[in-house]
């Protein structure tokens, strides 16, 4: 079990909604996305699969290269692939932009 924390201070745009997507099934994950309280974006990942910090950072670097909301993102993960993580993040982003 690992907890990974990432920060994206450049993501400063105010967001007002929150979103929850996903289920922590085997090979799957859930995302809780809320307005951040720190001015920038913060990510906290609780994962049952150790040793993939770089892969997670890669996914989030990519996500935040397009998304600039000051979001606090919590992930509970049971082995989702990077592709599906990105998909879920985009779903969550869509929900809060509506």
């Amino acid at each position, binding site marked *: *079990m690992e907890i990974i924390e990432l920060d994206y201070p450049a993501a400063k745009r105010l967001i007002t909604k929150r979103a*929850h997507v996903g*289920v922590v099934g085997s090979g799957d994950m859930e995302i809780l996305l809320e307005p951040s309280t720190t001015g920038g974006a913060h990510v906290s990942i609780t*994962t049952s699969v150790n040793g993939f910090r770089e892969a997670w950072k890669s996914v989030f670097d990519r996500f935040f290269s397009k998304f600039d909301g000051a979001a606090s993102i*919590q992930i509970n993960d*049971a082995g989702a692939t990077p592709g599906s993580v990105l998909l879920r993040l985009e779903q969550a982003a869509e929900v809060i932009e509506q």
Partner: protein
Amino acid sequence: MSESTFVPAFVRRRSFIELDGRARAQSLVDEGTGKELVGPFDRIESPWLPMQGVAPQADDGCVVIKGRIAANPAVVISLEGAFQGGSIGEVSGAKMTAALDLATRDSSAGIPTAAVLLLETGGVRLQEANLGLAAIAEVIASILSLRRYAPVIAVVAGTVGCFGGMSLAAGVSSYVVMTREARLGLNGPEVIEQESGIEEFDASDRALIWAVHGGEQRVGTGLADALVEDSIDEIASAVRRYVLAGKPALHRSEQVRLYRERIAALDTSKQIDPPTLREQWGLRDSQGGAR
């Protein structure tokens, strides 16, 4: 002039089974009336799973939505079968019991509040063992308390089904709604094969599994009340019907003499033939046909 296009029912039918636990609960309350209580953003997670390297879920696999059904106050409690097999831990069990107890409080104060239980569960969460078991005993107690005032409607839709200690929760409910895909029983096929041998139950025999535990058999023997298609509309409609029907005069789990006699009449020298049991125990509906 164009002809109208015929759209077969099975194309129009929206699957209930394909929905996750939260969406299932939302589909059953009157539009605009549902509010989730102690939801994922309240972050009351299992304290025990992370200690064992298992990723928790923010709602611990149990969704509680308070709202109205057919304009009547109701609460829907939905277990997420995809998270730890819908199993009951300290938190998910506490959510169920708390919701049932609050419905009881309102009901005894003059606002009958029905409970709908979406049971997609294997029973006790092994990583929480005794707290899961204790929680299930408390859920059973709370159902028995609420059903004196308002109906408790169990829905077993599949694909996990309802097994283990939570099958007793279905057993004490006022009404049980099942799809054909769904299964309901105390012990699943693998457990029986493991404990009593493959002769007793071959867990790879799918026909046998559904002949024993499946929705059609359970409803056909009167151990469940309604057999429905995997359709949001049909399930919501069945739930509404039972909410409006109110609590039954006598609950199935109170019919001790009837079932004791039925068990006494069984020929135990061989396995019970499921179709024969349907003939012996099956109920006739008001049109005279066997269900």
